[in-house]
């Protein structure tokens, strides 16, 4: 009974390959009163550095994670409790805390980390989290993959069945893109939903994935319960030509790193691992062709070929638009294209990868929007 | 004076295109030298102390000399002394002609020849009455008989040392003389063949060897042995004619190897490993001393399997078979005689006892 009032803060697991993280610094002092969504500390992984937000309320009674020290996932790094919980109870809690479930056990419970589905467009890799509630589909952007939803998928899965897929030409899905158009990608997404037996889902699309989601809402309105458009393409013509060119053309870490820094408000978030992982993806056979074909078809000459805002406004699909204020790839003012019909949130201090840079805020918006639309 | 034996060993026989078209033998130089060493040992065993050899640059003599030197250094005295005809080496058939003539002049008692039909033909052209002991190292080899060269050496040694009477030791051979009178200049070229003369319609000499039958028109043979290889096999398989009977055989073949219209079709081993179907329109005996004028008006003449001469409509070609044209060592007869008279035992039967 006692433990219910003591709330452990543990090293989070961001993404399926994360096994440990380094505490880089605390943003709240011991004794602070914490509300849900408050930024508690910064954690650095080999992939990315991010802020851990509070998921509970209480007083920060103990800070255990030492800055500069690496902790395994789920290790206890702080304790939240109401002021009336005795210190002895908290000490007892800490001394008996055991890191629950080792990595292997966790995998065994959750099943394989990634799945593949055979679709008319080819093999599609996806991840699935959660068992209940509304079905949500996460659609990444140009050059991305399902790990772009590192900080999103588990948060949404608390109250939904969440799918995240790799679009054709991306991640570990087929690299073959027959027709580099939004319609073709939308068809591939619908084919994926058919393959996993989902009739209708809440679409969450980032960047190009937002445009794919909009295309799907227009072509197959019955299958799109709602739209959440994050830094989405398809809401205006502008897009940073230099970013697209640079991303497609980069073959070395030296070339790619500055390009990736464009994606974030905080350039320091681009880690060596993130660059290496993207280079490894870009070296795969077929990726270069796929990216070139898509960029030529969708973003030629630095202009977006498809602007779907008007159609979406008319269609009446419940829509959320989220943007990072400092987005240097697609300008944040594109958010206003749907201002009259959608909920629009522009988040300060975040760039194009707003769902990673301000995960807590974006996740809260998504949960709220999906709950309302369902 | 002890008899001297001449040796003509051709280093370049069995090098022609039939190695490619028909898997024909190519006897290595080192093996030719080994053959020669065996012959030399046999001659020495019969009392021959000196041999006179044709010089060549093909390596045979160098190998032979090395073998003899090794025997000497082991203290063995099993070879006769080896002398070389003093003459320039051209690497062509002229060397054989030249060396044979020199040996004849030097008075050799017999000529041991290593080569094919072509080499024997070149020797026969110059050897006069000196008997030939042939050893086959060539391709078609209808003329030299096949046997272990040691035996040929023994027979030659026995013959030249007088231990076998000449009428047994030596036999007469036939040949066909070919005469070609140029229509343009009036000049006459004469050639000869020991076994066969083949007339083909193509006029270029090319790679010399004869292995295609489609242009083959006429065949003249001194003997027709069904056991031999080459164009003369065609005659042998139609009507055998012995080496020791008078006259030969003339065969006409159908144009372009046509085997259909009323002609006799024959399968014959015209080269090693090559069975050919030929159409025969006619064949008849070729008596000695009668000049034959062929029907083919232009083409080339292959002598013992190699194209040598070409002729046109303006030229006049005639062929005449001659009996008793030159002599060979009759190895079979010599050895039979040696056995019957125990010539190689410690106490040979007196020579006269054989009669």
């Amino acid at each position, binding site marked *: 009974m006692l433990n219910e009032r003591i709330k452990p803060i543990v090293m989070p697991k961001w993404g399926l390959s994360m096994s440990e993280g380094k505490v880089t610094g605390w943003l709240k002092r011991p004794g602070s009163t914490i509300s849900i969504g408050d930024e508690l500390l910064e954690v650095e992984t080999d992939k990315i550095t991010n802020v851990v937000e509070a998921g509970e309320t209480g007083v920060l009674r103990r800070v255990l994670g030492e800055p500069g020290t690496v902790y395994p996932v789920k290790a206890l790094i702080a304790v939240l409790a109401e002021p009336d919980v005795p210190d002895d109870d908290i000490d007892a809690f800490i001394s008996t805390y055991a890191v629950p479930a080792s990595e292997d056990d966790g995998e065994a419970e959750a099943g394989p980390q*990634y799945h593949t589905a055979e679709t008319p467009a080819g093999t599609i890799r996806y991840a699935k989290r959660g068992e209940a509630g509304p079905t949500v589909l996460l659609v990444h952007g140009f050059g991305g993959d399902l790990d772009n939803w590192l900080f999103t998928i588990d948060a949404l899965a608390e109250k939904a069945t969440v799918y995240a897929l790799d679009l054709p030409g991306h991640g*570990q899905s087929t*690299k073959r893109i027959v027709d580099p158009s939004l319609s073709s990608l939308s068809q591939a997404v619908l084919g994926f939903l058919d393959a996993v037996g989902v009739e209708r889902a809440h679409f969450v699309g980032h960047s190009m994935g937002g445009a794919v989601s909009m295309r799907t809402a227009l072509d197959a309105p019955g299958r799109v319960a709602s739209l959440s458009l994050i830094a989405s393409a398809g809401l205006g013509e502008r897009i940073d030509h230099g970013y697209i060119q640079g991303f497609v053309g980069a*073959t*070395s*870490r*030296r070339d790619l790193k500055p390009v990736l820094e464009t994606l974030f408000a905080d350039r320091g978030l681009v880690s*060596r691992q993130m660059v290496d992982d993207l280079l*490894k993806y870009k*070296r*795969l*056979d077929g990726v270069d062709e796929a990216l070139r074909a898509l960029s030529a078809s969708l973003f030629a000459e630095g202009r977006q070929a498809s602007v779907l805002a008007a159609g979406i406004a008319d269609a009446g699909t419940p829509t959320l638009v989220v943007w990072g204020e400092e987005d240097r790839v697609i300008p944040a003012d594109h958010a206003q294209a749907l201002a009259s019909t959608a909920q629009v949130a522009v988040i300060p201090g975040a760039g194009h990868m707003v769902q990673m840079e301000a995960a807590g805020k974006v996740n809260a918006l998504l949960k709220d929007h999906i709950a309302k639309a369902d | 004076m002890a008899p001297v034996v001449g040796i003509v060993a051709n280093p370049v026989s069995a090098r022609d295109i039939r190695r490619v078209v028909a898997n024909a033998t190519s006897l290595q130089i080192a093996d030719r030298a080994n053959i020669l060493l065996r012959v030399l040992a046999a001659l020495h065993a019969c009392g021959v102390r000196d041999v006179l050899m044709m010089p060549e640059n093909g390596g045979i003599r160098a190998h032979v000399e090395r073998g003899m030197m090794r025997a000497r250094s082991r203290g063995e005295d099993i070879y006769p002394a080896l002398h070389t005809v003093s003459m320039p080496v051209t690497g062509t058939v002229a060397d054989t002609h030249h060396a044979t003539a020199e040996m004849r002049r030097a008075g050799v008692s017999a000529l041991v020849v290593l080569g094919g039909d072509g080499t024997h033909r070149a020797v026969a052209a110059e050897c006069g009455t000196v008997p030939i002991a042939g050893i086959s190292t060539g391709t078609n080899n209808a003329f030299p008989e096949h046997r272990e060269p040691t035996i040929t050496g023994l027979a030659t040694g026995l013959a030249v040392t007088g231990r076998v009477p000449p009428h047994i030791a030596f036999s007469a051979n036939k040949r066909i003389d070919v005469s070609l009178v140029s229509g343009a200049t009036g000049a006459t070229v004469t050639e000869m063949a020991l076994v066969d003369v083949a007339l083909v319609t193509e006029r270029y000499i090319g790679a010399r060897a004869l292995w295609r039958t489609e242009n083959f028109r006429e065949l003249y043979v001194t003997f027709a042995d069904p056991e031999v290889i080459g164009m003369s096999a065609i005659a042998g398989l139609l009507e055998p004619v012995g080496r020791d009977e008078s006259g030969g055989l003339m065969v006409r073949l159908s144009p372009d190897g046509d085997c259909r219209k009323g002609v006799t079709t024959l399968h014959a081993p015209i080269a090693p490993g090559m069975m050919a179907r030929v159409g025969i329109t006619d064949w008849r005996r070729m008596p000695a001393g009668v000049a034959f004028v062929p029907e083919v008006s232009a083409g080339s003449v292959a002598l013992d399997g190699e194209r040598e001469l070409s002729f046109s409509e303006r030229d006049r070609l005639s062929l005449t078979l001659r009996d008793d044209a030159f002599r060979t060592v009759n190895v079979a007869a010599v050895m039979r005689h040696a056995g019957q008279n125990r010539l190689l035992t410690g106490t040979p039967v007196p020579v006269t006892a054989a009669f």
Partner: protein
Amino acid sequence: MSRKISMKQAINEALDLEMRRDPTVIVMGEDIVGGTGAQGEDDAWGGVLGVTKGLYAKHGDRLMDTPLSESAYIGAAIGAAACGLRPVAELMFLDFMGVCFDQIFNQAAKFRYMFGGKAETPVVIRGMVGAGFRAAAQHSQMLTPLFTHIPGLKVVCPSNAYDAKGLLIQSIRDNDPVIFCEHKNLYGLECEVPAESYAIPFGEANVLRDGDDVTIVSYGLTVHRAMEAAAALAKDGTEAEVIDLRTLSPIDWDTIVESVERTGRLVVVDEAHPRCNLATDIAAFVGQNAFGALKAGIQMVTAPHTPVPFSPSLEDLYVPSADSIASAVRRTLSPKGASPRIAA
């Protein structure tokens, strides 16, 4: 999909994938199938250390055992490349280059230049390099500098399974002759490698570790020794940047110079003999092009000027160790770091 496989498996997989992709790819070498013409099993060896094992079952006669006749078959691979195939010829131990070097450096390397740019020779010659296998002086050398010296050749030396696969695929697709050097002591080393095909471009060094205090440049096996040294140095507060060259020709000068301009200190590690090797080459280049950035004399850590010895006690002294690399780094950090030192 990514999974852990060894460098040996990665090379096998690269050959398999490229043979599937491109029918002009053929693979030849001594015993790469094994047992050809013998009475026992097909595919008896799959290479002397089993690198090509199993490929014969998948690709049949496109895997060709050769006579022990390097001049002839390396030359044949080069001739076939000049006629439109993409042969991968295994030279087993690259030490054997001595008997076929003419075909490599006078023929393959020169065709394009000598023929006025009208020839392409997309041949890959792969073989084992490096000491530590108790294989003695004629099966253990790091002869990479000899190949690197020759214009017209490209020289690759991966340090891990991921790089080996991507670099070998690039080598096969490359239109120039490539010498692909496989350190025999890395064959068993595993790392995450995608199952798909991918190519790593030439001339791009891999920065394995970031650091601001000193730059350590190496390739092949000694990259791992450099990483060990860097880990040890980090405990003392020295952060070393470790650069794995991956390809020696072309070489990524930019990454080296940019790093040295930041750290001001350079240690070059080369398993080759000390004279005219990659270490001297890089040291000279940095001395010429980034002298102003240097805070200390450049240190070179190499094998000694001796043949590779046989006895384990000697061979273990032969290959540059993590300790010797760390010591070299410390020399660059000491006040006397800039003073000249004559290498043994």
